[in-house]
């Protein structure tokens, strides 16, 4: 007799515990304010990423097409997986001295692990992180980027 009572008790307790769970999910059904899903492709226009978000490495240029990169190669040394390569050239300055300057700052986005060591160690703050995150391309070669714009020059006063 006792075993039958226990059996019935278990059934009642089981159904009760299931109802408790159902109450939680059911209550959300009537609280549409708690929905947190972002409708991503539709909200692209007003989607703002956090300003520290590490999307990709860029080299900011000013309006005169000048950058701050001196081509010292510290970012290349610090990169753990070789995603940065610096090709430098020697130029002659106005006062006749020979000087090393940057020819190409090559950045391989496909290899980058976003550890931020290059941006942190850059002595002249020439590179920074941008917030773009839609990096998918159809051709792998498009992931190899040249950060300095064609025809750009070193900003005056940066050594």
């Amino acid at each position, binding site marked *: 007799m006792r075993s039958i009572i226990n059996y019935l008790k278990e059934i009642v307790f089981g159904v009760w515990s299931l109802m408790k769970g159902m109450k939680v999910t059911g209550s959300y059904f009537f609280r549409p304010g708690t929905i947190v899903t972002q409708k991503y492709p539709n909200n692209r226009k007003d989607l703002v990423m956090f300003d520290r978000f590490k999307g990709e490495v860029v080299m900011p240029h000013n309006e005169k097409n000048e950058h701050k990169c001196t081509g010292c190669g510290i970012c290349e040394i610090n990169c*753990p997986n070789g995603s940065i390569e610096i090709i430098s050239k020697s130029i002659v300055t106005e006062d006749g001295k020979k000087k090393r300057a940057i020819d190409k700052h090559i950045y391989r986005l496909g290899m980058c*692990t*976003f*550890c931020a*060591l290059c941006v942190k160690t850059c002595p002249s703050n020439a590179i920074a992180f941008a917030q773009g995150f839609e990096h998918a391309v159809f051709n792998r070669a498009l992931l190899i980027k040249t950060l300095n714009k064609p025809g750009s020059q070193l900003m005056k006063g940066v050594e």
Partner: protein
Amino acid sequence: MEEKVKNITTDEQQEYVINMGPQHPSTHGVLRLVVSLKGEIVKNVQPHIGYIHRGIEKMCESITYPQIIHLTDRMDYLSAHINNEAVCLSVEKALEVDIPDRVKVIRTIMSELTRIQSHQLWWASFGMDLGGLTCFFYGLRDREKILDIFEETCGSRMIVSYNCPGGLMYDIHPNFQKRVKDFIKYFRKILPEYDQLLTGNVIFHERSKGIGKLSLKDAISYGITGPSGRASGFSCDVRKHEPYSAYDRIIFKEILFTEGDTYHRYVARIEEMWESMNIIEQLIDNIPDGPFAVKMKPIIKLPEGEYYQRVETARGELGVYIISDGNKNPYRVKFRSPNFVNLSVLNQIASGFKIADLVAIGGSLDLVIPDIDR
């Protein structure tokens, strides 16, 4: 290992050998379990690992100490910040650098946030393993709030790379404290919902109580750490026994149970989330002023010798062992990862139970496969 598998198929024809994984959803990654069955009863479980072996320890030998940190993110990706901290602490121990109080407190808060988000994801996937799909959505919804905090301060969501030898990469974001307080307030209300959804559920009780019992003796001899070990009564919390960062100045209790079954491994993690929130609340208003990093040399060279530092990740004890020969690269790095050790006990505790229980037991051990393979 192969010999043993062969023996099972030839000698004991009664047993039925199946492969669970590497693409089985309940192994949470590329882990292959060779299970030999008698009817529905599990007789033997042989884990086959190495599907995503990347040779992280070997890679560490050819890069500098600040560069190692981004690799440790990718071992146990759910407690990325704590892995970072382990390497930083051992490098700082070797160089005998005094770390500012601000760094210690911020590291502790971040570690506890990492622990909460890891347990949230574990709760979500554990519920899903046992057939409660709702848990998955609820767990990930709340985890999103912590990931937003990480994204604002560290710039990444999961693999944060926020530590560097000597301190932190950047200072905390001005919104950090407010966001963390908001999250604690929100999550204190939400966590009882987890209990209503899964902890009290009768189907969950039937599937977890008394399943996969791990005795205290076995837990110690196998070296099972973390919540899985503490559910068996093994007092192994590194935060308590060997405090690092700011853990020596806060009051918290170590969650200990004696039963050691799947249900109590579950409850231990739920209780840890409460405890982590207590830790954060003690620290969040008292972040001291000061620099966020010590100025280190551009090229860090450790003095010759051996250095070991252990920390408590969300899954157990992580040890970082560095041998230096005085160069800028380490001579050898060894990671004692908690998941590799926790996996070794699977055969011991799953034998004799049904194959459906193997999913529950594996889920309750909370394995992260990249940490096993490294």
